[in-house]
């Protein structure tokens, strides 16, 4: 790195934190919230289940059941905090790692498998669930989200406490893309009710965040004239509080807002990646001490808000979820070749129709080879 100093594990003085890595409640002048024991148990459960599903996804890939898996390990608090800050009418635009946000929007982990098994490009209904399909081309979704949020505004759905808002997820690496910039320009100029939620997990594959910026990413917002906040992305309470505030700002018409959730990618970039080639295990060890789930568990115990039975039950639920996921995955049927030509357009194209007909005709010449697959 030519410029800048690397101090990955420290978020700096501006970091909003409500629950320390040691499980202590910290107060914050601007973003404090009250949580009930039940709420906190719910957040804990979310994180444990999401992590379990994530680990199962990883295992399924290792066993050849998935082509690739994109782990969220370490980012559970950032995602569950943000996800639980959303209201049903709020819209989310994920990148490709937001299995935790998906969970909060009611997308089943099984719905996500198809992308990574290669049977579909995303199977859920983004309109009905208000959770857009995963976007793989880095940064694209920031503009799509800006447009959607502009639409919320144009429809008069913004301006009071019943307003709607949108949240878009992207990584630290993504901040370099022109589309993310343009998304910020548009949102600022059109007062779009959009929360830019950057999970700074310190790495863009092998590149540390210093390859993308000299200064903390939340400061980017200043240049556009809207607030930027850095939150402890491993603190589910802080993520919840800050995102809830930001979404509320937006639904009241005071958007956009940038949130930088300062977190860490504890696993590889994807199952195809080998992080030992570019980062030291020390770093991972330091971050393990800030584990997003552990601090909640400690706090629940300290406060006597949860007993062993609760933890056991969550564990059992997690195991069940994982078993279900595995069961579902190994039984997923291969798609039928006709699927190649399916719904390319709303109004079918004669070109696609010709190619489909010719190809199916060609296939019918083979007695059995291509018999399988679901239509």
């Amino acid at each position: 790195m030519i410029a800048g100093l690397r101090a990955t594990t420290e978020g700096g003085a501006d970091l909003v934190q409500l629950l320390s890595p040691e499980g202590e409640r910290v107060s914050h002048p601007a973003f404090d919230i009250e949580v009930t024991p039940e709420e906190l148990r719910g957040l804990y459960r979310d994180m444990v289940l999401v992590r379990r599903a994530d680990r199962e996804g990883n295992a399924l890939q290792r066993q050849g059941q998935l082509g690739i898996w994109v782990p969220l390990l370490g980012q559970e608090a950032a995602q569950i905090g943000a996800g639980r800050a959303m209201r049903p009418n709020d819209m989310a635009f994920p990148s490709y790692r937001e299995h935790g946000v998906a969970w909060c929007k009611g997308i089943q982990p099984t719905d996500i498998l198809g992308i990574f098994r290669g049977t579909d490009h995303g199977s859920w209904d983004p309109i009905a669930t208000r959770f857009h399909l995963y976007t793989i081309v880095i940064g694209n979704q920031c503009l799509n989200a800006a447009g959607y949020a502009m639409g919320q505004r144009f429809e008069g759905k913004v301006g009071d406490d019943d307003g709607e808002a949108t949240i878009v997820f992207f990584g630290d690496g993504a901040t370099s893309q022109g589309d993310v910039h343009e998304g910020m320009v548009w949102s600022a100029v059109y007062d779009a009710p959009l929360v830019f939620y950057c999970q700074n997990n310190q790495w863009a594959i092998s590149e540390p965040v210093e390859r993308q910026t000299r200064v903390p990413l939340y400061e980017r917002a200043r240049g556009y004239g809207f607030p930027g906040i850095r939150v402890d992305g491993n603190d589910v309470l802080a993520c919840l509080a800050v995102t809830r505030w930001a979404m509320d700002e937006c639904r009241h018409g005071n958007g956009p807002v940038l949130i930088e959730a300062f977190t860490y990618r504890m696993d590889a970039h994807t199952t195809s990646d080998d992080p030992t080639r570019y980062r030291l295990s020390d770093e991972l060890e330091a971050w393990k001490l800030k584990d997003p789930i552990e601090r909640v568990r400690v706090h629940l115990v300290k406060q006597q808000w949860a007993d062993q039975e609760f933890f056991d039950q969550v564990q059992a639920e997690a195991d069940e979820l994982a078993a279900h996921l595995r069961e579902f995955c190994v039984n997923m049927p291969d798609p039928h070749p006709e699927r190649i030509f399916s719904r390319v357009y709303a109004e079918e194209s004669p070109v696609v129709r010709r190619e489909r007909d010719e190809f199916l005709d060609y296939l019918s010449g083979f007695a059995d080879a291509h018999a399988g697959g679901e239509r």
Partner: protein
Amino acid sequence: MAAPTMEKPRTNEGAKVQTVTMAKALNMGLRAAMEADPKVLVLGEDVGKLGGVFRVTDGLQKDFGEQRVLDTPLAESGIIGTAIGLAIRGFRPVCEIQFDGFVFPGFDQIVSQLAKLHFRSQGKVKMPVVVRIPFGGGIGAVEHHSESPESYFAHTAGLKVVACSNPIDAYWMMQQAIASDDPVIFFEPKRRYWEKAQLDPGITPDPLFSSRVLRQGGSATVACYGPSVKTCLDAATAAEEDGIDLEVIDLRTLSPLDLGPVFDSVRRTGRLVLVSEAPSESSVTAEVATRVQQECFYSLEAPVLRVTGFDTPYPPSKLEEDFLPDLDRVLHAVDRSLAY
């Protein structure tokens, strides 16, 4: 579900016949679509107060307001990318790209999102977005203002691509494109913006994705689109004097191609000349030629020939008369075809 409009477009019976330029016809088409559906939005650079650098959106912001006709920040990825988001929200955005050469900063959003979201979501997300692009040369402009980028889009699965060539088509095709639930890249031949025709809003137009025989003839077939259509019709008139009887087909839709009429014609004439301003390599004209030699193999009495812009960057405008296919070059190719 197919867009309802393709088969039975809305007709404006009772509206009166008038002489209009293509720019005006496009404006009227936009206006009709905006009146018919409050979800139709217009976005682009200078489309509001100024009415677009070619005045195609003239008066729309005044009549429909700033939330339906948006002067956007200056960035094409932003225009396309937010239009996609608006479409996800249920709007039907019509984007203006100011000139052909400026579509490229928005190319990624077009190829990666606009073209793919319907397929990716298996129809759960529709993309009724129109991208209007004034295209082609002949107006004496500086670099990047005279290009013919249609082949990039025709090559992209998931997009539909059309080009109008006259005011009447312009009026109808614009409304049909906006009514389509698929993304349509809509090419407008900018040097024909000020040509006039009698527009009768009472008629029933042809479907959007269809080509059309404009002139019948038996000597050879000439297929073209956009700005070249007038050139080819003029060439046909000139050829007549030499006893050569050209059939002229306006392709109108570049993706999907509607080649039925071309095949029929070539089966009769045995000869085909394709005309386009775009560079030839790996282009729409190459696709048409390839399909025709395949479907009309036994009918062809000469190879399919092309008259196109050259495979060079668009030249300084003092040279564009040479660069662009003109009447002479079309006739020269016809002669070559007839000589086989």
